[in-house]
């Protein structure tokens, strides 16, 4: 044990020493190198201690040593200035020990530092490696997430498909169910019919008497159209066929006619539309720029074919529709252009038009105002001429007077005429009355005459009433006393009417009776 310990110690020291030397850490080197000049330069006089400052050096060293924790080298109080060699050697030995210890610790520290360095390197490597791994795994993760999302979408779409399919299946099942009920229903109906048939058949087979079909008509009736019926022969069959085809053909003809008319109408409309569009585009193009007039010209040439002649040709139809399509496309592009340009061009034109219109109106109004002004001036001018106006007034007054006088005369004449008319009517009425009375008197006189002629002689009665007028009394006088001259009475009654006509003085023969 003891040997092992000493050997161990020796080995350890050796090893340590070798290690120290082998490792050769910069610190050690530095330290050893730094410490070397002190040892090497023993021959040269060191700067620290000289022959003169031995005491100071000693005290200094004492201080240093005591600060390091070692016993002092020299005691000052000692009178002999000789150094205690033993203490100095002890001190040196202690210092060397200290030095060794520090070297050892340094070594340890360096070893530790190496270890930690290597550990650090190792850790750094491992972190980079782990970082890479982390990156890798992150990427993998995102990839997996993406896949999961896609799969989920797929799942959703598949679920939708499944739902749709289920619905379709349900629908088809419903259809099948309804068809099945329909089939069943029909089947049942057919079966019932079959049963009825069977029953009927049985009945017929069992039935002894078979009722035959018969028709019992009192007398044949004529055909509805009154014609005699014809035998069925090949001719009639052919006639029927012919009639059938005729009916079909006439129907087709009618249809074709309608279609032709419709076609013509539509073609006309298309042509009109095309012409309108061409004119519209031409107008637009002229207003915009003249560069495109060339293509416009060619366009006009294209449309130059005579529509009336070629309308019934397929090529013409195609041409028409193609040109219409072309025009429409142009128009569309033009409108789009306008839209893109903004609304400037169109309102400007309309504005210009409106401006022109307004200007015209203003001009007209101005003219009107001017003429009116002239007239007014003229009026004023004419009204300033007083003499002329007076003259005019005088003329007016004269006219008025004359008219008034004429009016008066007219009024008088009118009143006279009225009076005369009234008198005439009165006279006419009176005359009619007198005539009536006269007739009555005549009748009575006649009666009287007859009566007087009869055997009952002298019934002379005054027959006349007193209500009759003067003329009637004149008449009655005549009847009773013939010698009275009646002409004067007639003259009288006539003269009151204003007429101065003379009645003929002949005897009124109209009485028709001569008096004896």
């Amino acid at each position, binding site marked *: 044990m003891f040997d092992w310990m000493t050997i161990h110690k020796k080995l350890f020291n050796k090893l340590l020493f070798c290690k120290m030397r082998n490792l050769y850490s910069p610190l050690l080197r530095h330290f050893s190198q730094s410490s070397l000049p002190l040892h090497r330069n023993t021959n040269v006089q060191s700067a620290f201690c000289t022959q003169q400052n031995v005491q100071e050096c000693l005290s200094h060293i004492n201080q240093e040593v005591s600060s390091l924790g070692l016993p002092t080298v020299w005691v000052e109080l000692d009178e002999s200035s000789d150094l205690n060699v033993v203490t100095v050697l002890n001190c040196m030995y202690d210092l060397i020990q200290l030095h060794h210890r520090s070297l050892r610790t340094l070594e340890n520290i360096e070893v530790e530092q190496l270890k930690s360095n290597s550990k650090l390197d190792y850790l750094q490597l491992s972190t980079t490696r782990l970082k890479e791994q982390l990156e890798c795994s992150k990427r993998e993760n995102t990839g997996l997430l993406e896949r999961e999302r896609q799969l989920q979408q797929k799942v959703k779409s598949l679920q939708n498909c499944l739902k749709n399919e289920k619905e379709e299946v349900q629908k088809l099942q419903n259809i099948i169910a*309804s068809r099945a009920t329909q089939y069943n229903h029909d089947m049942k109906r057919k079966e019932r019919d079959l049963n009825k048939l069977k029953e009927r058949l049985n009945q017929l087979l069992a039935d002894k008497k078979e009722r035959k079909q018969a028709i*019992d008509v009192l007398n044949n009736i004529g055909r509805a159209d009154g014609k005699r019926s014809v035998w069925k022969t090949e001719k009639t069959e052919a006639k029927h066929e012919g009639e059938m085809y005729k009916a079909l053909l006439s129907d087709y003809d009618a249809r074709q006619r309608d279609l032709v008319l419709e076609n013509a109408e539509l073609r006309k409309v298309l042509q009109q539309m095309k012409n309108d569009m061409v004119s519209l585009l031409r107008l637009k193009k002229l207003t915009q720029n003249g560069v495109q007039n060339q293509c416009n010209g060619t366009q006009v040439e294209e449309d130059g074919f005579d529509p009336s002649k070629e309308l019934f040709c397929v090529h013409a139809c195609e041409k028409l529709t193609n040109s219409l399509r072309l025009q429409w496309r142009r128009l569309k592009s033009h409108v789009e252009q306008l839209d893109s340009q903004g609304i400037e061009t169109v309102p400007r034109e309309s504005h210009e038009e409106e401006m022109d219109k307004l200007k015209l109106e203003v001009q007209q109004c101005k003219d009107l105002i001017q003429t009116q002004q002239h007239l007014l001036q003229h009026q004023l001018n004419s009204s300033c001429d007083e003499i002329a106006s007076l003259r005019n007034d005088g003329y007016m007054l004269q006219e008025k007077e004359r008219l008034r006088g004429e009016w008066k005369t007219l009024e008088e004449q009118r009143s006279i005429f009225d009076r005369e008319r009234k008198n005439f009517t009165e006279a006419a009425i009176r005359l009619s009355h007198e005539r009536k009375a006269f007739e009555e008197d005549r009748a009575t006189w006649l009666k009287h005459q007859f009566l007087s002629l009869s055997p009952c002689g002298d019934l002379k009665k005054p027959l006349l009433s007193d209500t009759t007028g003067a003329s009637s009394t004149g008449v009655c006088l005549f009847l009773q006393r013939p010698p009275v001259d009646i002409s004067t009475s007639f003259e009288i009654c006539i003269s009151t009417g204003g007429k101065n006509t003379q009645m003929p003085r002949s005897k009124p023969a109209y009485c028709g009776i001569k008096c004896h």
Partner: protein
Amino acid sequence: MNFSEVFKQSNQLCKVSPDGKYLATCVQYRLVIRDINTLQILNLYTCLDQISHMEWSSDSLFILCAMYKRGLVQVWSLEQPDWHCKIDEGSIGLVSSRWSPDGRHILNTTEFHLRITVWSLCTKAVSYIKYPKACQKGLDFSRDGCYMALAERRDCKDYVSIFVCDDWHLLRHFETETQDLSGLEWSPNGSVLAVWESCLEYKILLYSLDGRLLSTYSAYEWSLGVKSVSWSPSSQFLAIGSFDEKVRILNHITWKKVAQFEHPAVIDNTKTVYKEIEKRPTVTSDEMSLHNITVASSLFSTQSKYEISPLPVQIPVVKPDPDRANPKIGVSALAFSSDSRYVATKNGGFQVHSLNWHRSGDSLTLIGKDQLCLCYMDTEQDDK
């Protein structure tokens, strides 16, 4: 408006003569002829059994009374009340009976559609047509009365025969491209025959008079198809009403669809919707929407009135039972006005039995089970 007294009738057999002078009604087994102006009974005929079907001849001289149970047809003359005619189909039975367009032949369809017997009243001659098809509308006369189209079925295949009504000469006989022919109809001008499939497939075929196939039209597959068909009076349009509640209009030149009308449950895009408001709360209100009506006024407004509903209007829809066959959905009635300007359509399960336009195209009659309504169209002003 004046009303006459109520007359008895049975089986809804009450028809005005084609010349508009007489009214014929059936009461059990009696046939009563009245003058239409005075409603006086002119003639009374007695048939041997209850009358199932009654029809005037086209010249208004004869009336046909069919008694399906007994298999008898009796024909009466208006001019000669003594004249009588009795057609006995015997043991073969009778399912339907009708006049021919000339008014001198009677077509009887026997039981089980075994054959059609053509009886001639002029010559007492009989013709037989075999294998007629029992379908929705298997027989149609052209409007001018010259041709008759008949659907036939032999060996599980559909055929159409075209006869000349003059002498019942078979003009054309051709096979149709249908699986199960359900109906046929002549165009008003008599040159095109529209043939449609049963409701299991939407297919409508157009044949010309001489039997050539002109065109085929199919709007969609698999779902239930054509429910009703109507030609416009000018023969220019063919309206097809289908189970998907849409009306499609084809044109006569290309036979392609030119218009399509829908019957949505919420109406938003028509001009006016008229809603009938009943004052009695017990009767359910009856709502109809008709396309292209501009103004209408109701004539019989004693118990209900019409008001203009603001758009959008929700129409109460009764969902039909999907498990039943021939469901009550789809466009079941179509009618063109006489000037081809308007189309009236009936969709769904509304209680309207028939739509009839007046000859002038100004008014439309809606006939329900118990009710009748007249709709007047606003005639356009002259300056429009």
